[in-house]
């Protein structure tokens, strides 16, 4: 009666379907976490429950969840490429490359052999091997929590992921191409190689340039940038399919190509991660869960398959980790840690399995067996990682964070913003870093004026194609505020607009006559920039720079010069310094195409600097050795000057340094037009 009055009907339609999916995504991971299983298991189980085998909210013939899952799969592979730490891979490329090949090859061979023993076709066996050759760093958060993210073994394994994932996807592309194509072997190989070259060109050359143009032009808003990335990954997937390669390979390559355009910790990366982790990737996992058939999973033949697969993946990853110990000089604990990190099979394996299923190479029994293997490897990896983290001493990574990962910029003059943005871009681009424009005001009444100026800085930086996260601070001590910002935001370099003249506009208005370099936790660049485009980058050293204590400043200066030269159009590089063997060695780090010139620095600056030069000078605690020449250099028309300091050497040594150094960095005088006393 009541039902008749209410006109009650059973739940149905798209809203019911999406409600089922949403509930699976909300509840699945929570329940899994409660029983100490990885959330991915909860999502797969959620898919099973709403699928045709249990509740039937998603039917066997449903195309909606399946299509969304396909989008999620592409997004997952894009994220995998975009989030890979290429800087880490680059820093540990030898060890990461070696271990990557080892941890790819061992499970690949074992998986392939297992497939052949099971009478699978060669194509299916190859794909099976590649499933276990890749890995997903599911247990990395445990390692990070244990303070081991800087450990060499961890960095090596993270870097190796670039190798394993790429090679696995290449195998997938080859196998899928051979299965779905009808051409001769030679033409398939030629077509695949050409396809990969075309895809590499599109994802590695075209997309980054398009992104740079878009970010600097119409794509100012974060939403527009995110949508651009979505379109870019889909375009790469479509391009990939057009050249006969699986779409997920294109999506992965797009992620790699745009890796530096989506800096870690940036607002854009946060959006990429949010949409991925909140919606698209879970939808993919739920859509895979829909395929699970408990009746198939519990069959002895399926469990037997899973056992064989487990032996291949655990054996292969174990062999690689053991071999890495003598080959790369790791301890037994580190070797165990590498095993725990590289064992987990999740995203990449699921993606390739899904494609194998989709092209008819794998049946439901293999898919269900793979799901069992994923569960087993996740559990064993978690156990192995937990045990081995206790046996490894936390050690710092070799080298510091990349110089251009997060650049804190203190701008002072509106007419220098464009030049400052270009310099910022040159400094952060090699690391795919982000820029934090900083404005400090000592009076709260000036907040509005400073906010307007900061907005202008942000606008110019964004137009330069930079990822920007501006900060406005009210602080009675601008120096401390700048240093604190660098610490709180994880800054890696501090760049200050500076006017190298006897009278200058302070970059940080107000404050004390103090020393920013002394307070700064990161290298500092003081930039007196001209409007002229840079046509030549000059590193100029004085004999005082050859003192051992100056090594850090010189090294930082050369790195800054190298980056600017890399970004400028002419790339003409000149190194000036005293006639000394050590100078030649120092300049080798500047670049291979550098012209060397033995000359007295001050003489060279006085007589040979020309318009279009950007002169890079290492800072020196004794300002009398640096200040006059810096002023003289910038006094030339259209010559820019950078003074670079690495605070490592300054700490504890700078007490007697003149107050003028504080003025030099634009902090002195207590007002906006301080006088520099060294002139």
């Amino acid at each position, binding site marked *: 009666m009541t039902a008749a009055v209410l006109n009650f009907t059973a739940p149905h339609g798209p809203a019911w379907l999406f409600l089922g999916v949403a509930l699976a995504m909300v509840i699945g991971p929570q329940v899994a976490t409660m029983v100490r299983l990885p959330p991915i298991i909860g999502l797969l189980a959620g898919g099973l429950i709403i699928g045709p085998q249990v509740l039937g909210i998603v039917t066997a013939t449903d195309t909606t969840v399946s299509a969304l899952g396909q989008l999620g799969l592409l997004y997952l592979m894009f994220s995998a490429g975009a989030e890979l730490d290429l800087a880490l891979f680059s820093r540990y490329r030898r060890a990461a490359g070696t271990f990557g090949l080892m941890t790819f090859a061992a499970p690949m061979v074992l998986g392939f052999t297992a497939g052949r023993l099971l009478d699978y076709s060669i194509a299916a066996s190859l794909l099976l091997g590649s499933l276990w050759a890749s890995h997903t760093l599911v247990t990395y958060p445990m390692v990070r929590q244990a303070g081991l993210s800087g450990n060499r073994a961890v960095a090596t394994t993270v870097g190796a992921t670039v190798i394993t994932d790429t090679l696995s996807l290449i195998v997938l592309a080859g196998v899928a191409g051979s299965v779905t194509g009808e051409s001769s072997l030679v033409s398939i190989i030629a077509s695949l190689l050409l396809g990969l070259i075309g895809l590499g060109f599109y994802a590695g050359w075209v997309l980054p340039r398009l992104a740079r143009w878009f970010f600097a032009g119409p794509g100012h808003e974060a939403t527009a940038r995110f949508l651009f990335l979505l379109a870019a990954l889909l375009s790469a997937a479509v391009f990939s399919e057009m050249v006969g390669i699986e779409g997920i390979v294109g999506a992965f390559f797009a992620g790699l190509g745009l890796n530096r355009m989506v800096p870690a910790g940036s607002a854009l990366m946060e959006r990429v991660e949010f949409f991925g982790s909140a919606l698209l990737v879970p939808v993919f996992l739920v859509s895979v869960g829909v395929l699970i058939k408990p009746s198939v999973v519990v069959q002895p033949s399926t469990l037997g398959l899973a056992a064989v697969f487990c032996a291949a993946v655990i054996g292969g990853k174990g062999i690689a980790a053991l071999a890495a110990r003598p080959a790369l000089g790791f301890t037994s604990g580190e070797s165990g840690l590498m095993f725990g990190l590289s064992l987990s099979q999740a995203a990449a394996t699921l993606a390739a399995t899904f494609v194998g299923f989709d*092209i008819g190479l*794998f049946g439901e029994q*293999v898919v269900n067996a793979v799901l069992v293997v994923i569960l087993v490897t996740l559990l064993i990896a978690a156990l192995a990682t937990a045990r081995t983290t206790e046996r490894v001493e936390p050690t710092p990574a070799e080298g510091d964070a990349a110089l251009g990962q997060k650049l804190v910029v203190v701008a002072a003059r509106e007419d220098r913003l464009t030049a400052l943005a270009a310099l910022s871009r040159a400094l952060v681009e090699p690391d795919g870093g982000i820029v934090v424009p900083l404005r400090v005001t000592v009076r709260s009444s000036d907040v509005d004026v400073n906010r307007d100026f900061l907005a202008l800085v942000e606008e110019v930086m964004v137009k330069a194609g930079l990822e920007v996260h501006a900060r406005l601070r009210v602080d009675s001590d601008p120096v401390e505020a700048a240093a604190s910002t660098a610490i709180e935001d994880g800054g890696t370099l501090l760049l200050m607009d500076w006017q190298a003249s006897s009278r200058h506009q302070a970059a940080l208005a107000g404050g004390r006559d103090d020393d920013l370099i002394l307070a700064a936790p990161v290298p500092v660049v003081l930039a007196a920039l001209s409007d002229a485009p840079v046509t030549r980058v000059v590193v100029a050293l004085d004999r005082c720079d050859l003192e051992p204590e100056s090594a850090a400043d010189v090294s930082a200066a050369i790195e800054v010069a190298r980056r600017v030269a890399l970004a400028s159009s002419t790339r003409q590089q000149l190194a000036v310094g005293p006639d000394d063997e050590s100078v030649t060695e120092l300049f080798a780090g500047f670049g291979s195409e550098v012209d060397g010139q033995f000359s007295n620095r001050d003489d060279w600056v006085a007589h040979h600097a020309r318009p279009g030069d950007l002169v890079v000078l290492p800072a020196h605690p004794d300002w009398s050795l640096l200040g006059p020449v810096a002023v003289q250099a910038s006094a030339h028309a259209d010559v820019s000057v950078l003074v670079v300091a690495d605070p490592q050497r300054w700490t504890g040594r700078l007490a007697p340094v003149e107050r003028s150094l504080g003025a030099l960095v634009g902090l002195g005088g207590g007002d906006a037009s301080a006088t520099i006393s060294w002139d």
Partner: protein
Amino acid sequence: VLALVASAALAACGDDDDGSGASGTFTPRTDDTLTVATGFPSAGFWEGTDVDHITGGFEYELALALADRFGLEKLKVVDLPFNKLVAGKAEGFDLALAQVSTTANRAKVVDLSESYLTTPVGVVSRDGLDIPDLAKAREQRWGMAEATTEVDVVKDLVRPEADVRIYPRTADALAGVVNRQIDVAALDYVRAFAEVAERQGIKVAAQITAPQNYAVLLPKGSSNLEAVDSAIRALKRDGTLDDLTENLYDQFDVDVNEVPTIRVTPR
């Protein structure tokens, strides 16, 4: 390294053998022969004079592709009543290709594979009567053959103002349109084009967005289901099914995108 890995993978695949366990194994009831059941003939799907003289058709080509995929040399076609097939009461075949739409009730008595063709529901009206939208569709007098999936689609999703009329066969429903007993008939989309081509005074007036998924029918509990599912997925991915579908519609010389669409919400 990339080129080496890709070339090695492909070279290995090039010498591939018939090992196919990963995608399921197909075991025919007669050695080297795929025995396919259908209701013969069926315009667009099975063309020819009898099962021994087949000239073409979507499902015939699909049967050949499946036999090839399973490594079977011969194809044998048997003519069996549709009602018996979907009721799970027919025997003597490996699989059936008979435009069987997937329904929950059918899945209880037979095994149904992944879908190989998805079509909307076709709407046939007399010449001069346009059905541009759902509102207009609801005003019409509807008819269709009994026990077809179209009955549920019209009753549940179109929900006409007048009671629907059920005919014993689709041909009777079409005759009802011609005789003006009803205004429109709902039937299989592809068949609608075939029937309109052979009759005067009627046209395909619309398509209803209620997807009908055609699946391969196998005897309940068949061990061949996994292999058939894998084969259907493979034929989708390599473009075979797209080509067959294109040919299917091409023969009617109609742009299916120009047929008015009645949008309904799936339940």
